[in-house]
């Protein structure tokens, strides 16, 4: 199954959820297994993510560390793991560009429920054309009539883990 997934995808833009495994933080996503994720990453030529997702990951770990034990360790070694990602040629971190901002402004009128993180990450993902996300608001937006009817829907595929082989 995973081989099929990998063969269909050469490049993928991942939302913040999928950066967490690189920071040694376990996630619970329906059907997700770390071994399968590793195979997928190994078979991709490029993995794209937003620079914003790095800040978001750190901020989320900080929040989690205030309510649960154990996340302090993830915060401590965050920089080391980040350094590995930054040095890996397979990883491409996207800054916010004028092209992304143009997409942002196109999406905004039909996406009032999306927050700034959703909008920025989605806008940047247009550069790749395929976004892997588990964000509830982004997936709701994807399933909305407004998005389906808009010309933007033809320019990007928004998928969650269980759909990635489709």
């Amino acid at each position, binding site marked *: 199954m995973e081989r099929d997934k990998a063969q269909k995808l050469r490049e993928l833009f991942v939302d*913040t*959820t999928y950066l*967490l*495994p*690189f*920071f*040694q*933080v*376990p*996630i*619970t*996503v329906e059907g997700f297994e*770390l071994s399968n*994720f*590793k195979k997928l*990453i*190994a078979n991709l030529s490029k*993995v794209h993510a937003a620079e914003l997702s790095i800040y*978001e990951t750190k*901020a*989320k770990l900080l*929040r*989690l560390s205030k309510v*649960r*034990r*154990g*996340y302090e*360790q*993830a915060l401590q070694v965050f920089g080391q*793991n980040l350094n*590995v*990602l930054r*040095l*890996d040629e*397979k*990883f491409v971190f996207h800054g916010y560009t004028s092209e992304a901002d143009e997409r942002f402004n196109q999406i905004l009128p039909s996406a009032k429920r999306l*927050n*700034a*993180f*959703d909008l920025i990450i989605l806008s940047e993902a247009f550069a790749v054309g395929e976004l892997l996300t*588990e*964000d*509830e*608001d982004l997936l709701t937006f994807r399933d909305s009539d407004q998005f389906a009817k808009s010309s933007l829907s033809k320019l990007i595929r928004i998928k969650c883990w269980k759909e990635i082989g489709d």
Partner: protein
Amino acid sequence: MLVKKKLELKVGTKGEIYTSEEIRRAVGIEPRSVVIAEVGERQLILRPKESAEHLLEKPRFKVPPVSPKQLSKLRRKLAVDLGAR
């Protein structure tokens, strides 16, 4: 850095430094991979270059796994915080 072993390695006529399979295996350097060289005053430290895939092999922290629901909620809160400041 904790030094576990000191070895003598040969340097070739063109300056190449020869290691052994035993050494490469012990430190995780694979053929055709890339190493990081840290150069100091009269010293050279070589270590394998880690990749993103290596990070996925590292042990997970003993924390409750985070769900998409929690992550979406955290994102909304962070967005509100940013907007409020």
